[in-house]
């Protein structure tokens, strides 16, 4: 049977989002941050609701009150931590050690909260993972990376993607990723080559600059490190953009639901161009173009996304409802964990 191709579409508009964004910021400031939980839900809803697949939008259903409670709890923990660390500096290491086993639990909670509050066609997404597995991926593997001088890093990225995707479900249908470890190593191998080429180029530039603007008495021009950093920044962005694009494509192109295969066609050049012009626009506009930059990025990412299906999209069945608390989500937010398919 010939598979049907269905593109994802993004209908969000920069002008419309700008108004929502600025009202969100103002109300968050006026309420001393309390409104930020509502602002977050409204922002995320705007992006989910504007993402369409086969004439149906995605939904974000989180309760802002839960997010607010989670934020207050995190704030309380941070205050306690800072207070203890300031009064008894010796205890700081103990606190960090105590946090290590909690960390995987927080990640599971955050993913659960996010997935459980995401829906499509009134069917919820789900996340269910084993604690020990999370402990291995998020604590064990980083330790392994340290002992292998970074050689295990691509394996860690693969394990992380696999942990997220393989434990996710849409209704009763489980997601599955088939990308191999070798494919991840290939991406990082190429990224390493780009990085080496970059370093050589920058070293060449530095040498030329050294000759050009080094002071006559042989000492270093104080502006030199700043200039080098500025030169290096676009190159770093290129490497970052390459890794992001390739890893995203690799993961999504090997992700399946029953009868469905996902497809992502991001291009490194396009992503880097968006990063660069967005950064420039935000700085030049003193932040006013932040909503425009976000909409632009979302539009490109979603325009590159599609799926091929051999069945129809009416086949999915909902799973039994379960509760997910807001705390994990906020801790996840706080620690800037990369959550996403």
């Amino acid at each position: 049977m010939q598979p049907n191709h269905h593109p994802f579409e993004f209908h969000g508009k920069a002008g419309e989002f700008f108004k929502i964004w600025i009202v969100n910021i103002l109300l968050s400031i006026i309420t001393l941050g309390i409104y930020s939980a509502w602002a977050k839900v409204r922002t995320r809803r705007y992006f989910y609701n504007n993402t369409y697949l086969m004439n149906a939008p995605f939904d974000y259903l989180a309760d802002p009150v839960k997010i607010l409670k989670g934020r207050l709890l995190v704030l309380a923990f941070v205050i306690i931590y800072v207070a203890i660390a300031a009064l008894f500096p010796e205890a700081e290491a103990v606190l960090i050690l105590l946090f290590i086993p909690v960390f995987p639990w927080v990640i599971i909670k955050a993913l659960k909260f996010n997935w459980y509050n995401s829906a499509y066609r009134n069917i919820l997404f789900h996340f269910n993972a084993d604690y020990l597995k999370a402990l291995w991926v998020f604590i064990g593997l980083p330790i392994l990376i340290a002992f292998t001088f970074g050689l295990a890093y691509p394996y860690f990225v693969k394990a992380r993607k696999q942990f997220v995707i393989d434990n996710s479900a849409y209704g009763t249908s489980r997601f599955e990723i088939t990308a191999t470890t070798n494919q991840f190593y290939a991406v990082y191998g190429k990224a390493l080559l780009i990085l080496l080429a970059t370093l050589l180029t920058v070293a060449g530039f530095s040498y030329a600059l050294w000759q050009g603007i080094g002071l006559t008495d042989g000492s270093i021009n104080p502006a030199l490190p700043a200039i080098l950093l500025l030169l290096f920044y676009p190159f770093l962005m290129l490497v970052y953009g390459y890794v992001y694009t390739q890893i995203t494509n690799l993961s999504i192109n090997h992700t399946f639901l029953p009868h469905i295969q996902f497809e992502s066609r991001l291009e490194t050049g396009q992503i880097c161009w968006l990063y660069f012009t967005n950064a420039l626009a935000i700085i030049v506009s003193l932040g006013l173009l932040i909503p425009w930059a976000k909409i632009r990025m979302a539009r490109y990412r979603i325009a590159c996304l599609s799926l091929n299906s051999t069945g129809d999209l009416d086949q999915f069945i909902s799973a039994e409802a379960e509760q997910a608390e807001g705390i994990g989500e906020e801790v996840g937010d706080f620690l800037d964990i990369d959550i996403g398919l």
Partner: protein
Amino acid sequence: MISVKALYYDGKSSVQTPVELVFYESGKVLIRSDASQWDSTVDRLSIAARLGNTRRNIFLSDGSKIETDDNEAIDRVCRYFNKNRPQSLLHSLEKNRTYVLAALLLTAATIWAGIEFGVPLAAKTVANSLPAHVEHKIGKEALIKLDDWLFSESTIGKGTQAELNRQLQQLTAHTLREHLYRLLFRNSTKMGANALAIPGGDIILTDDLLDLAENNEQILAVLAHEIGHIEHKHGLRSLLQNSLTALFMAGLLGDIASVTSLSVALPTVLVETRYSRQFELEADRYAVELLDKQNIPIEHFTRILTLLEQSHGLNPEFDYLSSHPATDKRIGTIYDRRK
């Protein structure tokens, strides 16, 4: 009676069913598909708050959901039955140009006021309410780190050291922290001619600075400036201000950190260096007053500032990224205060 075209999902499967939704004045709601029809009441529907022109969700009590693009019709229903009052207020804020413009101006004004007054005031209040030993502890740790990274033993003779220390005690008599001051001498090839105020009361002079100074009064002028930093608790305050600024910026711009970290880092650096320049000017003001009291001409102060600038080869054009104001601006401000 209001009728809208909609899509129905039963919540058990992903099947999408086109329906017609009819609202009656009585509060009765009729849901009609090709195959069947059933009814409900407005009270039992939970209508999502409007968000731009995104498709509107209407949740039914049995877990099923209806979606419609006809936001205007649903708004009319909400108004008629007095539903969703607080949420619809948000949408009226967001769609009205005047309100949005007002929100923009108010936000800009709040951010400006927060950076200009809020953060410095909060930092000052906290700094003044913290017990003295906190500042001492911070100073002690900072000194240990500085000794590790930057300093080596001074070559200045013990006699000169003791004499300058005596002059410092004389200079700080009747200040807020009399008897807490201590003068330390260090050599540093990395820093060159420089003086540092450590929170708590220690002042460090580098050997190069002593070489650079043409007379004793110039050294006293530098000390007066550093005493200003310590009396105003600038070390502790800048520590607090910088953490507050970082928190403020992360809160404001945090969700775009993934777009680019430069757009968060740059404004943070700009604000922090601005605070630092304000502290320098405040320390200058303090120094002028103290030198006046001791009958030391401020020409010694302006002269040593010029000498310092020459020895560091600083570029006065780069004011915005600098931790210190340009020297001619500082000298100009010093004389302005005299008039």
